C-alpha cells in the first residue's frame, strides 16, 4: 500500500481489571485498513475480536478496561489519546458502528424516522425538513421498500432484517469513512444474511467507505473481505489477503478453523427401521382474540397440519427460517405445548395424556435445548443437574449407583467426571452443551428432540458436538428430531429432511435428495444463501 492507511492500529492491548485481577483480552495486535478496503477480524468467541473493535471507538467499560499499550491512528490523530469531547466528533460521524442484535440496538419507544433524524440534526445540524428528506433517501438506499410508509414505524413493526437495514441507515447517515460491523448478520436468517451482506458490499463500493468486519463465520469472510486477520486468544496469528488465507493458510490455528466445518454424511435413510415417533396432521394454532368478549377472530397457525416420522437410529432434520414453526413443531411432539393431531410414541397415542400421565414417558423422550447458557440452572452443580432426571425416573437408585450413572454418562459425552461438582459457569459453551446432552442421555432415552443444539456454539465446537451426537446415536440406536436453521449441520447429521415455512412443509424427503436436487424455489434459495451466500430473487424468501 503506497498511501497512508485510513485506520492504523499498532500494538493495541486491552486489559480488564476485576476484583484485583487483571486479564489481558487483547495482546499487542496491529492491523491497517486502507481506504475503500474491507478487513475482517475472524475468531471464535472469546478471541478478543469484538473488544478490539470496540476499543477503536473507546466504547469499552472504562476504567475497568484499560490499554496498557498501543496507538489507534485515524485521520492523523491517536484515538486512544483523544479526550471524550474530540472522540464524540469521530464517533457516529467519521467512524460508525453496527451491532449484532438489531432487536436491542434500536430504541423501541421511538419511530425509526425519529432515530435517524436525531443523528442528522445532532451531527449535521440539519433542519427538520431537510433531515426528513435525507432520511427517506437513506431508507431507500438501504433497500427498505415503501420507505414513505415506514418512516413512522416503530422497531417492533419491522422484521429483524429490516431492523438491521435501519441500523445500517443510521450508521450511514453521516457518510462515515469507516464502518465497523460487529457480527451484523449473526442474529439473522441465512437468507436475510445474504441480503444484508450484499447491501453492505454495494454501499461500501458506492460511498467509498472502508469496513472493519467482525465475524466468526468463514463463509462470510470469503464473500466480503479483502483482507483477513485471524484472531485467537487475544492475538492476531495470521494476516493476509482473503484468497491467500483460504488457499494457503500458514498458521496452525487458521488451518484448524478452516477444517472445523461439520463433516461427514449420515448413512442413507433406512425405511425399515422401527418408527419411534410419528405425528399425523399436527396443528398448533394460537387464537387471535378481539373485542370485549375476547372472541376468537383468527388463528396464528404456527404449525399447520404436518406429518412427521422419526425412526430408531435415524435423524429427521427440520429446516426453516426463524418463525417457520420448526421449534413449535418439536415442542408439540415432545408434548411441551398443546396441539391437535395424532402423536404416536412407541406405539402409544400420547397427545391426549395429561402432564402426570406423561411423566413416565418423559424418560424416553428427551429434549436438548439451544442455549447451553440458559438451559442449565446456574445454581446447581453439574452432578445435581444430571441426576435430577434420575431422581424422578429411577427413585430407587442408591446415591452411589446414581453417582456411577452420572460418571458414566460424563465419560460418554467426553467430559472429565472429576468436574461434576463444579457449576455451569465454569465451563465453556461446548462443554455446557455436552452437559445438557448428558442430562438427556443419562435416562437412556429412545427419542431426543434437539432444538438448535449447535447454533450457539463456535464452528469448531459445533463439529465436535455433531460428532458426539452421531456417536451416541449409533451406540444407543437413538431417534433424533434435529431442528436447525443451519443447513451445514443438517447435511452432516440428518437422514431425512423436512423444509418448513409458515407452519407448513415446503419439501420433504431423504437428505441427499433435498440437498442435491431441491425441488422448490424456496429450498433452492435457502441452499444458495447458506452455502454460497447468494440472495434469491425478491418474493421467494422473507425480507
Amino acid at each position, binding site marked *: 500500500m503506497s498511501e497512508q492507511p485510513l485506520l492504523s492500529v499498532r500494538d493495541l492491548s486491552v486489559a480488564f*481489571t476485576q476484583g484485583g485481577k487483571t486479564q489481558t483480552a487483547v495482546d499487542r495486535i496491529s492491523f491497517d485498513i486502507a481506504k475503500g478496503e474491507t478487513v475482517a477480524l475472524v475468531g471464535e468467541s472469546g478471541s478478543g475480536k469484538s473488544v478490539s473493535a470496540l476499543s477503536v471507538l473507546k466504547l469499552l467499560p472504562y476504567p475497568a478496561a484499560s490499554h496498557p499499550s498501543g496507538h489507534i491512528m485515524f485521520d492523523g490523530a491517536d484515538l486512544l489519546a483523544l479526550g471524550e469531547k474530540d472522540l464524540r466528533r469521530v464517533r457516529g460521524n467519521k467512524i460508525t458502528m453496527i451491532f449484532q442484535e438489531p432487536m436491542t440496538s434500536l430504541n423501541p419507544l421511538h419511530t425509526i424516522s425519529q432515530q435517524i433524524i436525531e443523528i442528522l440534526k445532532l451531527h449535521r445540524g440539519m433542519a427538520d425538513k431537510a433531515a426528513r428528506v435525507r432520511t427517506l433517501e437513506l431508507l431507500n438506499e438501504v433497500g427498505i421498500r415503501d420507505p414513505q410508509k415506514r418512516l413512522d414505524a416503530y422497531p417492533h413493526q419491522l422484521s429483524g432484517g429490516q431492523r438491521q437495514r435501519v441500523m445500517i441507515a443510521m450508521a450511514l447517515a453521516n457518510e462515515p469513512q469507516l464502518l465497523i460491523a460487529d457480527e451484523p448478520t449473526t442474529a439473522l436468517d441465512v437468507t436475510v444474511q445474504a441480503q444484508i451482506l450484499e447491501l453492505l458490499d454495494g454501499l461500501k463500493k458506492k460511498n467509498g467507505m472502508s469496513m472493519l468486519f467482525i465475524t466468526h463465520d468463514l463463509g462470510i469472510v470469503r464473500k466480503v473481505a479483502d483482507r483477513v486477520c485471524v484472531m485467537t486468544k487475544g492475538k492476531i496469528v495470521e494476516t493476509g489477503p482473503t484468497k491467500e488465507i483460504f488457499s494457503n493458510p500458514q498458521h496452525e490455528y487458521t488451518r484448524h478453523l478452516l477444517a472445523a466445518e461439520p463433516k461427514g454424511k449420515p448413512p442413507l435413510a433406512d425405511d425399515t427401521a422401527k418408527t419411534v415417533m410419528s405425528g399425523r396432521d399436527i396443528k398448533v394454532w394460537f387464537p387471535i382474540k378481539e373485542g370485549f368478549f375476547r372472541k376468537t377472530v383468527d388463528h396464528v397457525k404456527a404449525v399447520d397440519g404436518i406429518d412427521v416420522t422419526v425412526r430408531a437410529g435415524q435423524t429427521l432434520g427440520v429446516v426453516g427460517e426463524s418463525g417457520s414453526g420448526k421449534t413449535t413443531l418439536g415442542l408439540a411432539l415432545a408434548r*411441551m405445548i398443546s396441539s391437535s393431531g395424532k402423536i404416536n410414541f412407541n406405539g402409544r397415542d400420547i397427545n391426549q395424556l395429561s402432564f402426570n400421565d406423561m411423566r*413416565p414417558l*418423559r424418560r424416553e423422550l428427551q429434549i436438548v435445548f439451544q442455549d447451553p447458557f440458559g438451559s442449565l440452572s446456574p*445454581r446447581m452443580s453439574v452432578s445435581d443437574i444430571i441426576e435430577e432426571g434420575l431422581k*424422578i425416573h429411577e427413585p430407587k437408585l442408591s446415591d452411589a449407583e446414581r453417582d456411577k450413572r452420572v460418571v458414566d454418562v460424563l465419560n460418554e459425552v*467426553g*467430559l472429565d467426571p472429576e*468436574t461434576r461438582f463444579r457449576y455451569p459457569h465454569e465451563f465453556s459453551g461446548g462443554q455446557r452443551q455436552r452437559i445438557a446432552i448428558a442430562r438427556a442421555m443419562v435416562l437412556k432415552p429412545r427419542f431426543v428432540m434437539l432444538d438448535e443444539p449447535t447454533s450457539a456454539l463456535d464452528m469448531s465446537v459445533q463439529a465436535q458436538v455433531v460428532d458426539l451426537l452421531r*456417536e451416541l446415536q449409533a451406540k444407543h440406536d437413538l431417534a433424533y428430531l434435529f431442528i436447525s436453521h443451519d443447513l451445514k449441520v443438517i447435511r452432516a447429521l440428518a437422514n431425512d429432511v423436512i423444509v418448513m415455512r409458515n407452519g407448513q412443509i415446503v419439501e420433504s424427503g431423504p437428505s441427499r435428495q433435498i440437498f442435491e436436487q431441491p425441488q422448490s424455489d424456496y429450498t433452492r434459495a435457502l441452499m444458495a444463501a447458506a452455502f454460497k451466500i447468494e440472495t434469491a430473487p425478491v418474493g421467494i424468501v422473507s425480507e
Partner: protein
Amino acid sequence: MVVVEDVTTRPVSKPWLSPLNQRRWANFKANRRGYWSLWIFLVLFVLSLFAEFIANDRPILASYKGEILFPAVIDYPEEKFGGFYAVTDYRDPVISDEITSNGWLIWPPIRYHYRTVNNEVPEAAPAKPSWMYDKQTRCARYPKGVDDENCNIGNWNWLGTDDQARDVLSRSIYGFRISVLFGLILTAGSALIGVSAGAMQGYFGGWTDLLFQRFIEIWSAIPVLYLLLIISAILPPGFFILLGIMLLFSWVAFVGVVRAEFLRARNFEYVNAARALGVPNRTIMFRHLLPNAMVATLTFLPFILNGSISTLTSLDFLGFGLPPGSASLGELLKQGQRNLNAPWLALSGFVVISLMLSLLIFIGEATRDAFDPRKTFK
C-alpha cells in the same frame, strides 16, 4: 473423542459452600460497615436473648442451706426462705440476708428486671443515672445509708429510672430483645406467606394470577393503622395478637417481587428443561425458581424487618401496642416526651432504637451487595 477445551484440576469433593455462596460471602465481607454491623448486632442480640442473666431482680445462682438454687430460671416460693409470699422477692433485704447468712448469692450485673420498681431512688422518679449523684445522696434512702451493703454498684441505675422508678437500662435491654424478636418473627412469617403466594401467582399465571392480584389490591387498600386501633380496642393487646394482625397485611410486600421473578423465570430454558425431564411443578418451583426469587426477597428483608420494628415502636408510643408494663422502646420514648426534664429517657430510647435500626440497615446493605451479581470490589 477429542476434547479441545482444557480442564484445570480442582478439588474433586463437593465444597461445603457452593462457589456462588462463597463469592456472596466474600462480597458481604468486603462491605466492612455491614460486616462489622453484623457482628455487633449478633453480639447484642445473643446477649439480649440471655437478658435474664444480665438484668434481673433475682440472683443467677444461690446456695441456701447447702442446696444450689437457680432463682433466675426457677420460681421458688418465699416459704422456702421463711417468708409467706408465693413469689420470692430476692431484693427484699430480709430474704437476701436470710440467704447470705445460710449460703451465698450470685447477682446478675444489673439487679433490676424490666418491671422491677426501685424503692430506693434518691429523688422522686424519674431519677437521674446513679453516677450523677454522690454516694451520700445515692444511698440516702437505704436503711443504713452509706454503709448499707445493698447500696452497691449492682443496684445502680446506669441510665436512670423512668417515671415509675424502673431501671431504664434493664428496660432497654428487654425492649431491644422484644423489638428484634417481633421484627424477626414478623419478617419470617410475612416472607413465608408472601413468597408462597407470589410463587403461586407467578408460576401458574393466568386466572390464578389475575384473581390473586385483584384480591391483593383490595386487601392492601385496607388502612392497617385504623384496623389496628379498632382491633386493639376489642382484643386484649399482646405480643402475638399484634403479630397476627400485622402479619395479615405485611406479607403483601413480598408478593410483587417474587411474582415478577417467577413470571420472568418460568420460561427460562432450564425450567423448560426440567419440565421436559418430567420434574413435578412443586420441585421446579423450589429447586429452580425459588433461588432466583430469593435474591429479590433477601434484598427486601432488612427493610421489612426495620419497618415492622418501627411500626411496633410507634404503636407502643401511641399506646396501642404491647400491654402496659411491657418493656417497650416506644413506651420509653413516650415517657421521654412526657418528662422533658429527664432527658436520659428520651436519649436512651433514641440511642437504642437508632442503633438497632442502623445496624440492621447496614447489614441489609451488605446483603444487597452480596447478592448483586454485578457488584465487584477492587
